């Protein structure tokens, strides 16, 4: 019998636990030449702000060992353009569409969330309180439990949509922030956004990125992300979306066994444009081989070896 990969998360039914990570998949238009969006568990589109954002100057990318530093800076056309030009085309996507939102103030987040009610396409909001590449907002909201709680609480009060809080790993105690956003009403938590990092161009004797620092993603960050999912999943009741350096089904299984209900693929799409599709196939194969009827049975499978020392 074919294993059941269905997962329920933040009130959304997903045919499999594989999602795209915001900012790595455009508005769903970038990879349709490789496979259909309908194969995905869910589509998370690029971070949207109230006003258009130009983003940071180039160079915006720097490669590091098994990693990628980026400083895109939330470049996006703004919520009105997204509503008008991008979301209508996703009505036939065949997969739940989740919009990532960001802002400079709590009011910004609330207004973007409210505007997105206008689209019947949007099934949930992922609230980005963790972008390391913008001067104000973003990470500032996600590095302190009180602020994180205020943003998530405000969006939750003004939105009829399920709210996913996307957290930053650039904090001392991830568990504390996770508990705060859960308390504030988050329906799910995405872990992790990028790690703040830096690379120096030794030929030019200057930082490789024009923004000086950027967010590190890719396999280099995976162990950090797995640890955070493992820790947080045992502290909160809401489901987790695990992300950070997932390229293969084996990587995805690590996150699921650490306690994630779903996974998101980001930088992996750049390496292998068919990454998500291959991960879905790999998860199916793993379940078949190991006689797992429903993939949800694997969530937190690694917990039982915890003697409490973590």
């Amino acid at each position, binding site marked *: 019998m074919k294993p059941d990969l269905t997962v329920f998360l933040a009130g959304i039914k997903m045919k499999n636990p594989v999602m795209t990570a915001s900012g790595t998949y455009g508005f769903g238009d970038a990879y349709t*030449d490789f496979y259909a969006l309908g194969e995905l568990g869910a589509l998370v589109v690029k971070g949207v702000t109230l006003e258009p954002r130009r983003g940071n100057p180039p160079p915006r990318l720097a490669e590091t*060992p098994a990693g990628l530093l980026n400083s895109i800076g939330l470049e996006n056309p703004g919520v009105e353009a997204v509503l008008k030009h991008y979301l209508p085309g996703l009505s036939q996507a065949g997969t739940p569409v989740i919009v990532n939102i960001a802002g400079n103030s709590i009011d910004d987040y609330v207004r973007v969330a409210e505007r997105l009610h206008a689209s019947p396409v949007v099934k949930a909001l992922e609230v980005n309180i963790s972008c390391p590449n913008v001067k104000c907002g973003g990470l500032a909201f996600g590095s302190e439990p009180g602020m994180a709680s205020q943003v998530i609480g405000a969006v939750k009060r003004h939105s009829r949509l399920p709210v996913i809080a996307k957290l930053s790993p650039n904090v001392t105690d991830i568990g504390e922030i996770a508990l705060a956003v859960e308390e504030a009403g988050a329906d799910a938590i995405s872990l992790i956004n990028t790690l703040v990092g830096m690379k120096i161009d030794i030929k030019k004797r200057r930082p490789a990125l024009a923004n000086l620092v950027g967010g590190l993603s890719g396999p280099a960050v995976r162990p950090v992300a797995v640890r955070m999912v493992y820790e947080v999943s045992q502290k909160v009741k809401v489901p987790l979306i695990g992300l950070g350096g997932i390229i293969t089904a084996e990587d995805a299984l690590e996150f699921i066994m650490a306690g994630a209900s779903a996974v998101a693929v980001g930088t992996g799409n750049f390496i292998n444009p068919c990454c998500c599709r291959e991960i879905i196939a790999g998860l199916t194969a793993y379940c078949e081989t190991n006689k797992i009827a429903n993939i949800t049975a694997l969530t937190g499978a690694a917990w039982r070896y915890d003697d409490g020392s973590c």
Partner: protein
Amino acid sequence: MKYHVREVRVVDNVKTGGDIYLLTLAAPAIAAAALPGQFIHLRCGEGLDPLLRRPFSIYGVDRKNSLVQTWYQVVGKGTDLLRKAKAGKTLDVIGPLGKGFFTDIAGRNAGLVGGGMGIAPLMFLGGELAQNNRVHSFFGVRSKAQLPPGLSFPTPLVATEDGSAGRRGLVTDVLEQELQRQKMDILYACGPRAMLQQVVKLAQKYDIPLQVSLESAMACGVGACLGCACEKSGADGESWLKACQDGPVFWAAEVKWE
């Protein structure tokens, strides 16, 4: 499916001079679809370091034998791995990607201006244009060993930094001399930014339409990551040109040069 994905066989990978190599791939789908100015996005190795694909201009296409060529210089980890790929090896390639050169011309004087490895896309372009146009090419390199092999259009005017071939000096000086002698109907350029800026000035001075192919670091190659942003000309400060998707070829007037 629009793109050929993965599993392309190396037919040949030979040094053409110095640290520059010509890679020939058996890639029927790419060969059938490729246009001059487009690129392929290639994984140089199988491991996670280097992590990203590398974009390479298409240097030549043999449609009859389904071959695609790129011409690359060994500059880092990725290209050093690629250099070691032997005939028979399978490489992971997506393409053809990007927007190519404007080639809808006939009976014209077309000028190709290439600097260093920027000559690569002009080789494919020159071969295509030469079928219906008079191709005049201007290549600037450090030294004779950096000149490309296998011309399929009339011999270029060459400028070298060391004087080992053609004239010692800048390719843009050679270009200007020729522009004083005869009228070009269109110019195409690819190379270092300083060279492109000079070609832009010459194109304005002699009132010739100019297309440029821009080089940029890329991650996705398909318009998703917004990593390859290039500055747009004019007052529109809200967006950038994406080298991978809007380009890599642009009309010079679309790009901000200062």
